[in-house]
């Protein structure tokens, strides 16, 4: 660690991992509810468990992004963080607000929570992924502003690199697009149109900037390839991301009351959305092949390569599968969407946060640039367990989706929703098994922080060269 203030990243990363475990736990509950309909009913109905599952995902990824920024920016700016105290304060505010919100979901009926938090004053609740009470949303805005101020001031006063500027633009975009979550008109067509300005322009827009800059940072550090080369790639990739992704929003506008030309605009541009992901894969492999040193933290490099491949598969390939309007007409709102969502989120965002944690954690714990060999072996096991099981989850959900589309939408004698659900239950069972394996992988991941942490190669004090 080159700068003392980078240490504030550590609690962010720990919280991220903790919430990740919670997210997967609720994922398993949801998977079981798919096949045992009354599991935990009526105490934790499906909608509550799902809300916890998705909201925990968003919150822990945000913790991960913030931790990554706090670690990365001082090193890029070559100066201490503007205010480490503010970063720690915001950590606790965000954690407490997040925990209270999740507890609210679990302990109070949702309508009671709406009443309790005065949703009627400014109704923003009850829309997918934006279920948080309005007061929590305001809290998120405050935390985001303080965070951006802290990061922005650090960059402004220090060295400005492409990596940190792109990260800043991505984080700024994240905060700005979130403001659309406060717009909730009664007109459903408009409500849905602008809802996507948060959801799509996050995950297929500004978050990809964050993804790109973290990946670039880790590759600079682990491969030793010239910064100029990596930053050039970074710019080209994120340029393609926004060029395809902004109009690509149109692939959500086919069937929600927006004019029908979106079917053309959305299909054409979203069909190109895999290109930046493919470039990212080529980029990561290229840089690792041209590496000028063998970084001792092999697990971190594995995660970096993994995210480049899995983001392309999940977001690129599985996204393309159902993005063209004539196909989407049949697949819209089926398990195909769920399949794509799981692999895309895991490949692009879960893995990039884990990449950063894997790279930074040894230094944050005051050790050498890499954990012990034993620890790395366990971590790599967790990589493969989680990655392979998410591939299977995706394949099983895709199978379920294809059958669902055929039985419910395509065949000459379409069957009712619930009848179809019974017929595809087999796929849900297999998905749940794959989910359990994922949980094993996650446990192994957590364990890797404790395995071999006293081994000699891990405990030697980090020198400057190792930390660079």
């Amino acid at each position, binding site marked *: 660690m080159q700068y003392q203030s980078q240490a504030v990243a550590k609690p962010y990363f720990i919280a991220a991992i903790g919430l990740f475990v919670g997210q997967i736990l609720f994922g398993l509950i949801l998977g079981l*509810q798919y096949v*045992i*309909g*009354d599991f935990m*009913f*009526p105490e934790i*109905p*499906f*909608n*509550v468990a*799902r*809300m916890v599952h998705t909201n925990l995902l968003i919150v822990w990824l945000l913790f991960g992004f913030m931790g990554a920024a706090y670690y990365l920016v001082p090193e890029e700016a070559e100066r201490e963080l503007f205010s480490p105290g503010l970063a720690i304060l915001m950590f606790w505010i965000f954690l407490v607000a997040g925990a209270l919100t999740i507890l609210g979901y679990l302990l109070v009926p*949702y*309508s009671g929570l*709406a009443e309790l938090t005065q*949703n009627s004053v400014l*109704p923003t*609740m*009850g*829309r*997918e992924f934006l*279920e948080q009470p309005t007061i929590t949303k305001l809290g998120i805005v405050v935390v985001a502003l303080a965070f951006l101020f802290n990061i922005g001031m650090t960059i402004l006063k220090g060295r400005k690199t*492409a990596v940190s500027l792109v990260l800043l633009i991505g984080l700024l975009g994240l905060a700005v697009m979130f403001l659309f979550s406060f717009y909730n008109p*009664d*007109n*459903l*067509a408009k409500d*849905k*149109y602008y809802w996507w300005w948060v959801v799509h322009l996050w995950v297929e827009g500004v978050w990809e900037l964050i993804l790109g800059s973290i990946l670039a940072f880790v590759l600079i550090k682990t491969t030793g390839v010239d910064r*100029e080369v990596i930053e*050039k790639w970074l*710019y*080209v990739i994120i*340029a393609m991301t*926004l*060029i395809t992704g*902004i*109009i690509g929003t*149109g692939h959500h*506008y*086919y*069937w*929600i*009351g*927006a*004019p029908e030309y*979106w079917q053309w605009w959305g299909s054409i541009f979203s069909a190109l959305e895999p290109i930046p992901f493919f470039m990212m894969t080529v980029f990561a492999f290229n840089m690792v092949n041209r590496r000028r040193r063998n970084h001792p933290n092999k697990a971190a490099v594995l995660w970096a390569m993994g995210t480049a491949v899995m983001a392309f598969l999940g977001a690129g390939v599985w996204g393309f599968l159902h993005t063209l309007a004539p196909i989407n*007409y049949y697949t*819209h*709102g*089926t398990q195909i*969407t769920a399949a794509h969502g799981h692999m895309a989120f895991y490949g692009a965002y879960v893995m990039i946060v884990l990449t950063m944690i894997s790279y930074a954690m040894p230094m944050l714990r005051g050790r050498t640039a890499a954990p012990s060999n034993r620890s790395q072996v366990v971590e790599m096991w967790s990589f493969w367990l989680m990655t392979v099981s998410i591939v299977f989850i995706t394949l099983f959900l895709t199978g379920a989706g294809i059958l669902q589309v055929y039985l*419910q*939408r*395509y065949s000459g004698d*379409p069957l*009712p*929703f*619930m009848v179809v*659900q019974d017929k595809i239950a087999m796929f849900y069972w297999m998905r749940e098994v794959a989910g359990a394996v994922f949980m094993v992988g996650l446990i192994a991941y957590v364990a890797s922080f404790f395995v071999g942490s006293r081994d000699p190669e891990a405990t030697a004090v980090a020198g400057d060269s190792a930390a660079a």
Partner: protein
Amino acid sequence: MSQAFTKAMARNIFYGGSVFFILLFLALTFDTHNAWPQRDNHEAITEKVSEGKRLWEENNCIGCHTLLGEGAYFAPELGNVFKRYGGKDGIKAFIMSRPKEGVPGRRSMPQFNFSDAELDAIAEFLEYVSGMNTANWPPNIQG
């Protein structure tokens, strides 16, 4: 020199391309605003429909159902449920009929204990949604 691929150039493409497509997106959004009145069934939005939408949101219906294909995939599509159930009465009767403790081994919608007025508002909201022009989606009545 002509082979140069400069970082400055890549950066300019990023900034220029982003601004270009943001402007294009805003232009299309502007046109979408002009096109909505013919498609969004806004004339059907009454006080009651607004109240129905609020109830829809404050009971997190989207956490199980899809509405125009968006939401969770645990329970049926409701954008066309007004047509599928043949009117408001069918919707109201179904919501009222749900057992408090669920159905053993099966998925079941919770019992929300809505008042008659609330049930009516929800049904009116779903009627309004079914009147939107969704480019013929869903493909059939099963949603």
